[in-house]
């Protein structure tokens, strides 16, 4: 009842906001005729970038948000997940010092698995659990050109796992990063920040760069103010080479190498440690990896081009409860061609091979411990111009074959209507699937909830285990989206996206399916195996709103707001029958307001205010409601001074409003609360 009432109230306030957005143009203005200006005058005309960015997006029939290089720098973020907090509809939780949950439109958590993340076209989600180890996905932030975030399914073009969104991290071409750059700094939470890059021109058409970076980050704190013992560091280096051949072909070759050591605090089940049956583990884990990527682009004619991309990615991770190695090779061919007057066709073929090996423990086992599997895909998408520069229809589908669930078909239909040069309206219906991960098919995880049951004969210890299932199927989504974008003046752009998502075959654990593994009795306890199944279904709906406003030439405001409602039905005997927790892993409302002010050309004063509604952990432990993460407001401030054009000194204060605040739980075995502390760091950036 309470829920319905508040729903109605929310709708009312949405209507008000929509009306405001629709009647927006307070400063609308017609195009200026500059043709009377002389060349000398034109050289002096300042152009605004708000419009440029908005215009690039005006053609996209999807909910896209782009973070530019400058925005990353001025946000004070020192990692990609921290920068993603500015995107409407993206939820970022820092779970412990070295773990993040990043999700779009729901289903957050350490093991959140419905996002596809690419770095320069290299897929970085882990095939082990279909989620992303964000702490291992580092990039030289200064060399990022932009981060494109697509909320909603992107499966037709991008493929499996692009269920709720795609995050595309795109680095600058080597030609744009010439010369030397050194970044050095440190502070209370960001203990050491160091990066250096050198760019060179090898021939008139060949550019290269190499970089090395190091970060050392302090631990978080427990609610009682104790050290979280989860500090960590990462060292990474890499290179990129771009060349244009005589025939016009473009070649790119790049690679990275990293090594990281991290601390984490675990609470693991121990049937021999009564009365809690929980043992605390102070774990030091290590992660390392390397990757190489090659890309070749060729224009066949004025209307057709092809590209070939090949990458190899090796990663290793060794922690208390498991060790894993993954080797991925991925080859992709793509052709874009124009057919007739109005069809723009893209089609492609792809292959991915995955080779893994696990080190198992009493807590987590994987059977077989090594596996080799492959993924094939073909896609075709046609952009049809129904009315030149006005109305465009996009039809496409991807057909994918994987070793676990066979063929998966992921079609989409999109329509874009350019109402005017300043406004466009789009809608889409698409289907996407998330294919099972390795542990969902062949893994077993012991839960930290050993129960002692008194029987007439003796006391029995029951140890629950969640087990993967051979018949676990892909999770499916049908999404309905609607969006509106407008740039009523070169100083103002607004973007609104609405969605309804319909999920089917979501992963669930049904306690009525529990099987007792009697053989384990000889160990002194009894294992109760809980197989996963696809019994979850449900809907979500929500909206995302972004607004960029250049108040003055030296002052920009960026607002992002999102609202999310999720209703999942799970089986009666599920672990979470009331469904409170699954549905609330992401906050209902989020707000981000950034202000970038440059009172003098050599001075930046930047502020970033964020609100995040309350949410739950994605893991169930204790009574429902025990794991609620309270809502919070936070503020970051940045002050930068450039005494010379190529020298920048800055000081950044992060999470200034509280001594510390909790954002989430690290989930599996990470049942301890950790809170993110207020932090200050200073940075020097020198280019020469």
């Amino acid at each position, binding site marked *: 009842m309470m829920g319905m009432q508040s729903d109605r109230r929310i709708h009312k306030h949405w209507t008000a906001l929509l009306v405001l957005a629709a009647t927006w143009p307070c400063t609308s203005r017609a*195009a200026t005729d500059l043709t009377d200006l002389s060349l*000398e005058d034109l050289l002096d005309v*300042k152009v605004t970038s708000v419009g440029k960015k908005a215009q690039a997006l005006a053609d996209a029939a999807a909910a896209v948000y782009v973070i530019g290089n400058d925005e990353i720098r001025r946000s004070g973020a020192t990692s990609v997940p921290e920068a993603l907090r500015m995107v409407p509809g993206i939820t970022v939780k820092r779970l412990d010092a070295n773990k993040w949950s990043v999700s779009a439109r729901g289903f957050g958590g350490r093991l959140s698995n419905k996002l596809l993340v690419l770095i320069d076209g290299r897929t970085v989600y882990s095939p082990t659990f279909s989620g992303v180890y964000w702490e291992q996905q580092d990039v030289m932030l200064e060399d990022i050109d932009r981060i494109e975030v697509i909320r909603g399914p992107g499966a037709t073009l991008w493929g499996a796992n692009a269920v709720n969104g795609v995050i595309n991290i795109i680095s600058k071409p080597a030609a744009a990063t010439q010369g030397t750059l050194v970044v050095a700094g440190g502070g209370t939470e960001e203990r050491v920040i160091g990066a250096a890059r050198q760019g060179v021109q090898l021939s008139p058409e060949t550019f290269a760069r190499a970089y090395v970076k190091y970060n050392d980050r302090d631990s978080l704190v427990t609610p009682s103010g104790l050290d979280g013992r989860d500090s960590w560091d990462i060292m990474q280096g890499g290179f990129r080479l771009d060349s244009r051949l005589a025939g016009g072909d473009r070649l790119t070759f790049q690679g990275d190498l990293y090594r990281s050591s991290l601390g984490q605090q675990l609470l693991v089940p121990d049937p021999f440690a009564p009365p809690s049956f929980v043992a605390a583990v102070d774990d030091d884990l290590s992660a390392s990896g390397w990757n190489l990527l090659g890309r070749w682009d060729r224009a066949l004619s*004025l209307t057709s081009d092809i590209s070939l991309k090949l990458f190899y990615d090796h990663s290793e991770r060794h922690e208390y409860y498991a060790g894993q190695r993954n080797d991925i090779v991925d080859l992709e061919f793509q052709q874009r061609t124009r057919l007739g007057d109005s069809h723009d066709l893209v089609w492609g073929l792809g292959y991915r091979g995955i080779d893994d090996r696990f080190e198992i423990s009493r807590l987590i086992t994987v059977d077989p411990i090594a596996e080799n599997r492959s993924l094939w895909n073909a896609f075709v998408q046609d952009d049809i111009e129904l009315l030149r520069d006005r109305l465009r229809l996009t039809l496409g589908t991807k057909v994918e074959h994987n070793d676990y669930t066979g063929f998966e078909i992921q079609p989409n239909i999109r329509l874009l209507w350019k109402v005017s*040069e300043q406004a466009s309206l789009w809608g889409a219906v698409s289907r996407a699937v998330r294919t099972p991960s390795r542990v969902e098919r062949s893994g077993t995880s012991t839960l930290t909830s050993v129960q002692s049951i008194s029987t007439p004969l003796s006391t029995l210890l029951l140890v629950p285990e969640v087990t993967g299932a051979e018949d676990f199927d892909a999770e499916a989504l049908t999404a309905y989206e609607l969006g509106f974008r407008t740039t009523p003046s070169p100083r103002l752009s607004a973007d609104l996206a609405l969605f309804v998502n319909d999920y089917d075959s979501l992963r669930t654990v049904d306690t009525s399916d529990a099987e007792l593994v009697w053989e384990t009795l000889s160990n002194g306890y009894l294992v109760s195996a809980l197989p996963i199944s696809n019994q979850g279904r449900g809907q979500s709906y929500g909206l995302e709103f972004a607004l960029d406003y250049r108040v003055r030439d030296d002052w920009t405001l960026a607002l992002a707001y999102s609202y999310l409602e999720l209703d999942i039905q799970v089986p009666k005997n599920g672990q979470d029958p009331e469904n409170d927790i699954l549905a609330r892993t992401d906050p209902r409302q989020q707000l981000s307001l950034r202000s970038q002010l440059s009172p003098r050309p050599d001075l930046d004063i930047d502020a970033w205010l964020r609100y995040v509604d309350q949410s739950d952990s994605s893991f169930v432990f204790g009574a429902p409601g025990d794991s609620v993460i309270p809502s919070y407001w936070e503020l970051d401030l940045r002050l930068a001074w450039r005494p010379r054009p190529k020298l920048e000194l800055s000081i950044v204060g992060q999470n200034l409003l509280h001594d510390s605040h909790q954002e989430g739980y690290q989930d599996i075995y990470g049942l301890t609360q950790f809170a993110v502390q207020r932090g200050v760091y200073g940075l020097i950036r020198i280019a020469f």
Partner: protein
Amino acid sequence: MRDRFESGRHGIRRILVTALALMCTAPAPRADVRDVREAEVVIAYLYNFSKFVTWPTTTFPSADTSLNLCVYGRTSSADAFKTLDAKSAQGHPVRVEPRSRGDTLHGCHIVYASESEQAYLTPLLRAVDRRPVLTVSEIPGFVAAGGMIGFVRADNRLRFEINTTSAEAAGLTISSQLLRLAIHVLRD
């Protein structure tokens, strides 16, 4: 718990409404501050270029032959380009002609290649190679790839670089006044 949640929601609404109201009432841009879309500057440049480039005499048989500016590729500023339609350059009426990817470039005196054509740059330049067509674009590396005038963004302003070798091979003469204002001139 519910209370905190409620107050959070109201707080958010207040902030949103205040922020929106603030933006609407924020001082309108002062009239003397030039604040324009990049496309408007590009169009003004194109018009100026048409006055500082000499085509071979055979290109314009008579005074009423139009000077055709072909806008090649997808652009969201089609209407803005039309402002050039009524103007005249070197005594010839200017005509703006939108061309889609793959359309012929016959009859074009100036080809402005939209950024959407980046992947097709080489075949595009090959299609007009050694023909008296002035090629202009914002595509990065346009001049190095053999284009004639490429726009470069520097310090929030739009500048340009010129490849005189390509222009001369096509039989075009670019006036020294234009060359002097280029940030970079590429010669053999």
